[in-house]
């Protein structure tokens, strides 16, 4: 299992390299440069600036230098936020984004699986269509509609929660962003869980478990849930991409100091290093989550697990 994980981890490297390469040359292909907005720049100063950042060299040389620095963990200086390196900017925004993303993922996983199980176990009764009707709305109504509606209702009308803002360590500031971010994911996971749970519940080994006289909670938790979770686990990768997209909206609406704005501003300002740095972070995060999903899958599914172990010996 460990060796499988290691080999999969190594497999990320070429993908990552490809993404960096594409992003690197794409940005340089785009019209405009990082110093365009400073209209009063004298040509000499501009030349000096470009020389200082190595922009006067051919693109291939810049690319080589960038990769070399990246291998040391150095993302380079930001072109726009002059006094900061990209590493500092990322270190500033990323913890906020990761906090709400991780909490939203946990919430969505917990609530989604629970709701899906409840719906599957109550099939044919009133609870099932109720939960699934809610899930349809949750999947379709986008975050950018849900978020301001919740702000309007809970923040402005009822005054239960702060409308927006971020004070480190304050839980009430987290409630609305995390809930909003997790809603579509919860709905999707609930649908997935219900479908696969129904399939598992109708299989022979569950019937055998009932026939043996096992208590119902044991059948559900020990026998039905693990195989029913497989599709949910393989959804973890796409879910990460969905969270990333959602968090751009949520960070903007709730005024959170996350890394989303560095991404957008970086692209608008042609801040090459900042955009590349964010690309590396985002790609690494999603690829890692995909890997984690695969590993959990292999661990949960005896067919894959045995295959992996057989390949080792």
């Amino acid at each position, binding site marked *: 299992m460990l060796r499988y994980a290691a080999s999969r981890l190594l497999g990320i490297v070429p*993908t990552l390299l*490809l*993404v960096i390469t594409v*992003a690197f040359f*794409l*940005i340089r*292909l*785009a*019209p405009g440069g990082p110093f365009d907005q400073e209209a009063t720049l004298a040509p000499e100063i501009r030349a000096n600036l470009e020389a200082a950042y190595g922009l006067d060299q051919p693109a291939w040389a810049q690319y080589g230098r960038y990769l070399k620095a990246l291998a040391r963990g150095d993302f380079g200086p930001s072109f726009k936020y002059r006094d900061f390196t990209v590493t500092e900017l990322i270190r500033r925004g990323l913890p906020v984004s990761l906090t709400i993303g991780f909490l939203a993922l946990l919430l969505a996983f917990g609530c989604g699986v629970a709701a899906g199980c409840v719906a599957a176990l109550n099939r044919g009764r009133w609870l099932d269509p109720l939960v699934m009707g809610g899930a349809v*709305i949750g999947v*379709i*109504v*986008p975050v*950018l*509609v849900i*978020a*301001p*509606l919740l*702000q*309007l209702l809970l923040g*402005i009308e009822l005054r239960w929660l702060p409308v927006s803002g971020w004070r480190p360590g304050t839980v009430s500031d987290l409630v609305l962003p995390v809930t909003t971010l997790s809603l579509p994911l919860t709905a999707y996971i609930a649908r997935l869980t219900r479908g696969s749970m129904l399939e598992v519940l109708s299989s022979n080994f569950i019937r055998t478990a009932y026939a043996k006289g096992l208590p119902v909670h044991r059948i559900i938790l020990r026998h039905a849930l693990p195989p029913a979770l497989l599709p949910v686990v393989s959804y973890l*990768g*796409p879910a*990460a*991409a969905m969270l*990333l*997209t959602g968090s*751009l*909206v949520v960070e*903007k*609406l709730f005024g959170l100091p996350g890394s989303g704005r560095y*991404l*957008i501003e970086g*692209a*608008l300002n*042609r801040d090459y290093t900042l*955009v590349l740095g964010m*690309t590396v972070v*985002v*790609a690494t995060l*999603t*690829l890692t989550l*995909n890997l984690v999903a695969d590993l959990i899958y292999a661990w949960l599914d005896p067919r894959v697990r045995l295959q992996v172990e057989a390949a080792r010996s």
Partner: protein
Amino acid sequence: MRREGGLWRDAGRKFRSRPATLAAVAFLAATILLAWLGPALSPHAFDALDYAHLLSRPAAGDGHWFGTDDLGRDLFVRTMLGLRISLAVGLLATAVSVLIGVSYGAVAGYLGGRVDGVMMRAVDLLFALPQFFFVLLLAVLFDQNLIVLFLTIGAFGWLVMARIVRGQAQSLKHREYIEAAIACGVSTPRILVRHILPNVLGPVVIYATLTIPQMILLESLLSFLGLGVREPLASLGGLVADGAAHMDAAPWMLLIPAGFLSALLLAFNQMGDGLRDALDPRER
């Protein structure tokens, strides 16, 4: 009963027998008609500033049926404009992604072997990456004009379509009529166009319908972040962003475009589900 067209006629009957689908189709037809004709009915232009009516409530009296925004622009006309842009981007981007996805999938599935392996590995790779992130980068870097916008958005929606079509093409390629065509010396491109494509039409139509709301959503996300359609034009996402900024003083600015956007997405999804029920034999 006539034999010809039996499959499609069955599908049509099944499609019409589902109330949610009918409601969705009726809503879409009404919305398209409204977006098309609506602006002509109103006395206001979409970018005219009316300083006498800043943030005024929806009312019939002054012709601002949906109220006005913070610059006094008429919200009815702007919402209709937003609908037009969102619909246009949704349909065109879907067309782009169908074009790429179908040809990519058909070629990979029909040729098979190593070509197929490489092509589908590339799709897997793209799947693992956050696509919205790259749409966003492209949209920002290559100027935010409408054509670039729907090309970029469309260029990222074709992955699932390619997988579906590839699977279908793979199972079709060993059918007798394809072998007969090969034996007759029909060229590969012609087999693809004349024999494979018509037979994958069902799933393509279903998935294309489900792609439209995704494309609309993608565009509205971009516009919401201020990276999509530029002022004074507006898509539904941009209007929702404006509305969110003024929701304490003028909640209608948020609620009206948000309502239209959600209803539009819901209707397209319902229509897609209806088509799937009607056309997908596995569901019967």
